[in-house]
């Protein structure tokens, strides 16, 4: 009892104050964050411009064709039918542009987490020290409630698409970092010995042996990252990020169950399509053929 009392008596540790001080300090680098904002805005506008310029029927056709090509060995006709009906439904409900905005957010996030996450995970795999430092940080990022990321996102990037991407990246980067690390570490040592015995340099070993063999694991990290990014779209709409999340958020505000559901279904359709396609890219196709002993 005594010790409990004494803990209370020293007063609260000023965590909030410290974090605030840190972010106030960070906002001092306004130029830096502005540059990032401008750059990311340009990227996202570029992607959105492409989505807007393509006629809807052509967009659906491209997705279907891509799916057919990706799964040409396993022939997922049912899934392609689902894609067709799903996208037609989104179109029919008038959520097409919202859907493309959400897709824009997810793709940009995906791009960033791959660009940042894969090298970081590789570095972790190569260095015990980096792993010791980064691994707990990733666990921390993943368990922190996603809402919390909105606050610094607004503080650093204002409101709009870019803070949404920032929050999504923070929230969805851990799996890809961890899976890259795991994937590379899991490559059996005999393959490393083989590559060394044939005179591979460290880079050749990485690109010719370790990455290709770690690819399925890394891709499942990317798949998880995409799913997490999608789960951020509704949350990110609270800070002015456009897309399907915004529609859901408005429906919540107006207590409109029907609209909320309709937009929610559009998110589900997009999620299923992205999940399946990103898994397909991960070589689910190839292992089907490869395990044919």
């Amino acid at each position: 009892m005594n010790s409990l009392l004494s803990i209370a008596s020293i007063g609260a540790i000023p965590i909030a104050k410290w974090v605030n001080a840190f972010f106030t300090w960070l906002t001092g680098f306004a130029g830096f964050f502005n540059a990032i904002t401008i750059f990311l805005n340009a990227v996202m506008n570029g992607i959105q411009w492409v989505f807007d310029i393509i006629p809807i029927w052509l967009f659906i056709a491209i997705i279907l064709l891509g799916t057919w090509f990706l799964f040409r060995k396993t022939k997922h006709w049912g899934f392609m039918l689902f894609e067709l009906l799903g996208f037609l439904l989104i179109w029919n409900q008038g959520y097409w542009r919202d859907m493309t905005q959400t897709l824009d957010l997810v793709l940009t996030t995906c791009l960033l987490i791959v660009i940042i996450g894969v090298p970081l995970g590789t570095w972790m795999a190569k260095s015990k020290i980096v792993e010791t430092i980064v691994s707990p940080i990733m666990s921390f990022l993943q368990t922190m409630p996603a809402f919390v990321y909105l606050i610094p996102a607004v503080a650093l990037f204002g409101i709009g698409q870019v803070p949404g991407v920032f929050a999504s990246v923070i929230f969805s980067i851990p799996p890809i970092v961890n899976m890259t690390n795991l994937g590379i570490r899991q490559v059996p040592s005999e393959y490393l010995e083989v590559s060394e015995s044939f005179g591979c340099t460290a880079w050749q070993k990485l690109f010719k042996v370790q990455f290709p063999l770690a690819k399925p694991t890394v891709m499942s990290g990317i798949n998880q990252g995409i799913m997490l990014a999608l789960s951020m779209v509704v949350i990110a709409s609270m800070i002015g990020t456009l897309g399907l999340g915004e529609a859901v958020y408005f429906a919540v505000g107006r207590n409109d169950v029907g609209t909320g559901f309709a937009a929610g279904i559009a998110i589900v359709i997009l999620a299923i399509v992205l999940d399946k396609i990103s898994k397909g890219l991960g070589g689910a196709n190839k292992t089907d053929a490869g395990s044919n002993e």
Partner: protein
Amino acid sequence: MTQNNSEKIKVNHITKIFGPHVKKAQELLSKGEDKAQILDETGSTVGVDNATFSIKNNEIFVIMGLSGSGKSTMLRMFNRLIDPTSGAIYLDGKDIMKFDKKQLLDLRRKKMSMVFQGLGLLPNRTILENAAFGLEVQDVKKEERDKKAHESLEMVGLHGYDDSYPGELSGGMQQRVGLARAIINDPDILLMDEAFSALDPLNRREMQNELLELQRKLHKTIIFISHDLNEALRVGDRIMMMHDGDVIQVDTPEDLLDHPKNEYVKKFIENVDRSKILTAYNVMVKPNTVNIDKDGPKLALRRMKEDQISSIFVVDSDNHFVGIVDADDANEMIDKNEKDLHTALKTDVPTTAPNTPIGDLFNAISKSPIPYAVVDDEKHLQGIILRSAVLDAMATKGADD
């Protein structure tokens, strides 16, 4: 098989110690302390202890030993996958321990290739891509390396699997790919780490033959690791026995069997099936012959009488084996006053190669009424095998055990 007996690799006082406190372990080792004791005191394991030997050009040099004998460690020091604690390895007179990074890469890319027990075929690459790996690492153009990989696969007898994946091939076929991958950059030296140990006996025998066949064509220096004495005796020109990190004996298969250096080697060779090791060459005897180009029936008869045999082996002036002549036929010729031995020549004589194992010949020889002729690739008569000689050889060798 060994044409050039010059020294290819010289290993000089190589020691490898694994674990912490390497320096201290080294000191204790030089004081002659027991390896188990060193492990107790320092936590370090002595992998190889002061190994000194040399490997000749174009020979198959087998390093024999049970697991933990240090043979795999020794092999990995040739291409420095493992760096020795002390000592030097000279390749063509150059100390590879002094090689810088670039020289070392060059050594691994062009001079030495390794075949692994676990194969290590990359599962995400086709057979062709796997075989071409050594060239890809050297940035050889795709077209050229694919062509060479194809040739290399053909050479090891693997046709039509270029576009398959390793998982689709049997163990023996995969081992051929491993071999093709190793010979593609035409290295001087092949390092083979228990390359055939994972195969079933039939496949293993086939791959051993394949290796010997390949060696006849390519004349590499092959360092072959094995724990199987029969395999070592079959493929090895010389065998090095290792035990507990020590080199115990380096000898030809014959000498190893006839003069084991200590109890350990003796125990090791006790269980060997001798019929598999003794070849035709070991049991053949030099026959008395006649030269068909100049000798006549009278001389033939005379020699038969000398040796108390009923037929004689006939060769030409270049010692090419041509057949035999019977005493009866020779007598008939003398009666008819004929001089040319060709008229009485019998050519349907069973022949065999010098390296045929006796085990394979045993049945045939015991049934054959005339001795077997041992001839080499150029049909030179090397000797003959008498029925009694085979039985004798196997009986006396067996009695040694």
